[in-house]
């Protein structure tokens, strides 16, 4: 499946875009999506284990990703 992974703040700056497109196996987990993004030239600045959200919820590395899910990489938050 093809996923558009959302990037924010320093991650978006590092990739030079607010999202990146990756193709992963249909049974991919969050960790596989991270690996796919990091393998892109534009994803080389993403850390090894970023926080990831799936459909607006934080998701563990073994969380199964489905086609149509909204996947986002979350840099260290700094609200307040």
């Amino acid at each position: 499946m093809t996923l558009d992974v959302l990037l924010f703040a320093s991650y978006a700056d590092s990739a030079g875009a607010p999202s990146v497109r990756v193709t992963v196996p249909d049974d991919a987990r969050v960790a596989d999506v991270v690996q796919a993004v990091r393998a892109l030239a534009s994803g080389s600045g993403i850390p090894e284990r970023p926080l990831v959200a799936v459909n607006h919820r934080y998701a563990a590395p073994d969380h199964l990703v489905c086609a149509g899910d909204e996947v986002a990489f979350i840099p260290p938050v700094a609200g307040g």
Partner: protein
Amino acid sequence: MRTAVVDRPIDVASLAAEVTSPSNGALSLFIGTVRNVNDGRAVEAIEYNAYAPMAEREMGDIAREAAEQFGTPHIVIEHRTGYVALGQASVAIAVAHPHRANAMDASRWIIEQIKGRVPIWKMEHYVDGSRQWTGQGS
């Protein structure tokens, strides 16, 4: 109970009015504001960037958890996005409760949760014209 990510100035008086009621003997209002120095550098303004739908969802979860933990549904939270000038409110939390301890404890708990969980980032704009994303807890 109400939470919102907003791109206009926060009207703190209206937040307070929203939670106050005759049954509540305490109203705690926390206002986070933009400070003029961070890590020794002179700050001119902070630009807040949010993953808005998730930020709204996390803030809603935090309000519900606080309501349960501290025993009051009278909670309103607003967080700014966009360019916020020195001294302006970036976040405001209003909690009303019959008693002061719960109102104050809830308010403190909520701001710590926001800082730790809500996907919002700040780009500091410095007086010298440079800018950078700030890290966690700053």
